[in-house]
């Protein structure tokens, strides 16, 4: 993956596990000087407000640490439920799958690079 981190969430996480993931991922971003993170939730059958907040937090923490975060693979039933619950995941970039997430990540990072060179 090079400068990107790919995290696949494959279990029904309890809350502490979600917080540990946030911690581990933040450390991994710094350790690997990652520019981008893909969080694959294609096997998650449910995202409630806690897991939603955790993902939004990871995205914001990543941003501060210089890494773009993209949430990929959300199941349609999960998306429908999230919207009805009222959770719009502000500030979280999403993509249909890992492949498209990589493209989006690459595009975001390239766009950032141009911004920097213009200053």
């Amino acid at each position, binding site marked *: 993956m090079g400068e990107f981190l790919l995290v696949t969430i494959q279990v029904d996480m*309890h809350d502490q596990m979600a917080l540990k993931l946030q911690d581990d991922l933040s450390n991994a971003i710094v350790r690997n000087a990652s520019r981008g993170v893909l969080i694959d939730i294609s096997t998650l059958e449910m995202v409630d*407000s806690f897991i939603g907040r955790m993902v939004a937090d990871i995205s914001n923490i990543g941003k501060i640490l210089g890494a773009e975060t993209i949430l990929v693979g959300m*199941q349609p039933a999960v998306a429908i*439920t999230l919207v009805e*619950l009222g959770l719009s995941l502000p500030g979280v970039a999403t993509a249909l799958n890992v492949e498209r997430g990589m493209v989006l990540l690459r595009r975001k990072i390239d766009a950032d690079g141009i911004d920097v060179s213009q200053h």
Partner: protein
Amino acid sequence: MSANIKGEAPLRSEHDIVLARQQVRRLTQELKFSLVDQTKMVTAASELARNAVVYGGGGTMEWEILSGDGRRGLKLRFADEGPGIPNLDLAMTDGWTSGKGLGMGLTGTKRLVNEFDIDTKVGAGTRVTIARWT
């Protein structure tokens, strides 16, 4: 009405929240809920189970399979003996949160189910009953 099938699960820890979700998933699958309806009920259960554990200091989830009028449904009752909710109107306002969630707790949960009833009293705990029909 045929004989109702009931059960109860403890809500003492975060792990119990996961077990409650899995139990509700199994029940909704047995009832042949659509995948979206399963997900809504499981998510609603997760929100309410967490409330009982985090704010209510633990409690129970009772479940009951309902049948009537040619339909079947699942009723869940979350009960805790915690501090209760002092201002229920405020707690039922969209966007309100006491801190740990995203402010979607009760109102968001209400939108995920067909029936929603809350009974809370300061110092005497909170009971939330939800139901969803096939």
